């Protein structure tokens, strides 16, 4: 019964995602700008030393995918505020299903959509010099799904505490950009000032980006088991927090 409810919430989001194909295409604009405007522009004078020998744009690809997952996850968790303001949430709250099913459904649909959007970024790989392998792509997809579970959970947890869309955007702007920059997406996390590496250590995105780098360009800075342990742990913790905060509402 509650699995059905999870499925209903998930299905609703996916129908709407699929219906807005324009949104799918525009979601590729931002990654393209980062890869080709930032990446190509910087690659002239960025010299990566250390174990990674590929081009700078190749280095950026997994990071840009991580960014896509980050924004897609947060964007989908915002919809819970939208549902509340426009009433659809009530239709679900008065149904004979547990509230936690609604949160799980939201998180799962957020992760599915984020994974699809992140995977689409791979169409740029031939232009940035990344050779794809089948297992690499599968690994990347799994990583993105896992990463998005925790980011969606985090987004929903913050959203339940917010009374308006504006407030949510404000909080997220303070959070998202630093999370992205300190994730190792655009520069390797080495030789940084201590305070920066300390923050990077508590950035969930850093672990996702690290695992994505391993999947796609065979380069990593943390140990992979740490990456996955952190991602799984955060997914569980944020889902639990989101669920309990959501239950307290109303």
């Amino acid at each position, binding site marked *: 019964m509650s699995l059905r409810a999870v499925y*209903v919430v998930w299905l609703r989001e996916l129908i709407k995602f699929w219906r807005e194909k324009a949104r799918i295409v525009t979601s590729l604009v931002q990654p393209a700008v980062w890869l080709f405007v930032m990446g190509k522009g910087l690659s002239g004078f960025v010299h990566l030393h250390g174990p990674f020998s590929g081009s700078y744009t190749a280095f950026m690809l997994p990071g840009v995918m991580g960014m896509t997952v980050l924004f897609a996850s947060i964007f989908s968790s915002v919809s819970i505020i939208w549902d509340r303001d426009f*009433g659809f949430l009530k239709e*679900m709250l008065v*149904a*004979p299903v547990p509230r936690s099913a609604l949160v799980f459904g939201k998180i799962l649909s957020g992760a599915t959509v984020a994974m699809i959007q992140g995977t689409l970024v791979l169409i740029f790989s031939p232009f940035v010099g990344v050779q794809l392998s089948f297992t690499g792509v599968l690994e990347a997809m799994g990583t993105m799904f896992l990463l998005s579970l925790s980011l969606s959970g985090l987004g929903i947890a913050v959203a339940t505490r917010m009374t308006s869309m504006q407030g949510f955007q404000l909080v997220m702007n303070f959070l998202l950009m630093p999370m992205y920059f300190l994730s190792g997406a655009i520069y390797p996390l080495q030789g940084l000032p201590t305070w920066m590496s300390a923050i990077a250590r508590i950035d969930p995105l850093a672990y996702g980006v690290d695992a994505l780098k391993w999947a796609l360009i065979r380069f990593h800075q943390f140990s992979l088991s740490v990456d996955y342990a952190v991602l799984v742990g955060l997914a569980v913790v944020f889902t639990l927090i989101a669920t309990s905060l959501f239950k307290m509402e109303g």
Partner: protein
Amino acid sequence: MTNRVMIEARGLVKRYGDFTAVKGIELEVQEGEIFGFLGPNGAGKSTTIKMLTTISRLTDGLARVAGHDVTRETDEVRSSLGIVFQDPTLDIGLTAWENLYLHGLLYGLASTEIRERADAVLAMMELQERRKDLVKTFSGGMKRRLEIARGLMHRPKVLFLDEPTVGLDPQTRARIWDYVKTLRDENGLTIFMTTHYMDEAEHCDRIAIMDQGEIIALDTPDNLKRSVGNDVITLQTANDAQAIAALAANFSITARSVQGGVQFDAEDGETFLPQLLARNLFHVTSLNLRKPTLDDVFMLLTGRTIREEDLGARDQMREAFRQRGNRR
């Protein structure tokens, strides 16, 4: 019809901080009844509905819907009720059919049953042609009908309608009332609805008049109106003095002379007037029969009247608050 109690409230209280929105309501609604909640904005109608439908916790008291306790048997209560909230809750980014389909799934219907029910409720609400259209393209009246259709998908025993006709044009309002009566007559559905339109409340079998969190009167519309007083008849005659004398002599009625002619009270104006005219005691040039309205009832009980323009302004404020995210 059996005399089953479908909705029961005992000492129902809802407090928001220091403010008590609902102050110990008592009511019983029988199966197959159309029960109306009438009162100005802020009376506590929606809050009561929210408690009866498990959306909002009771501060105190007890409530049962379809025989189940709203606090302890939440899922049973939820399965047996359908609801149309005051504010729209459709997903406008989905089609009519998708809204119904997801609702069916949410209530645990099997796919074949969902298809059957969706067809039936769409037909009933005359929306078959628009089933594949996105709800954002619907008019206000169509959205309301679709919401009612959705509320009926899982064959509820009790249907709650919170201001179902507010903001709709008179024809659409009349149609929605037709549907509601059909549902009661053909399916024996129990209907609990709120309104602040006096004229609409007349359609209900029984009405509870609510003000400031309390039920101040509860009876059939006719009884309520009778409690206010008699019908008022005003006659224009060729000779008022003669008419007053004739009324006193033949019917022992004390009529008064007013601006528009001769005025007096009668218990049952519709039957009295033909009798009077048949006697041909004096020449009547025009007549006016005014029956007491529920407005008069509200006026008598509270000393105030429900003025529609006030409601408009308050509704707008409420809307503005809602937009700003002042919720619950």
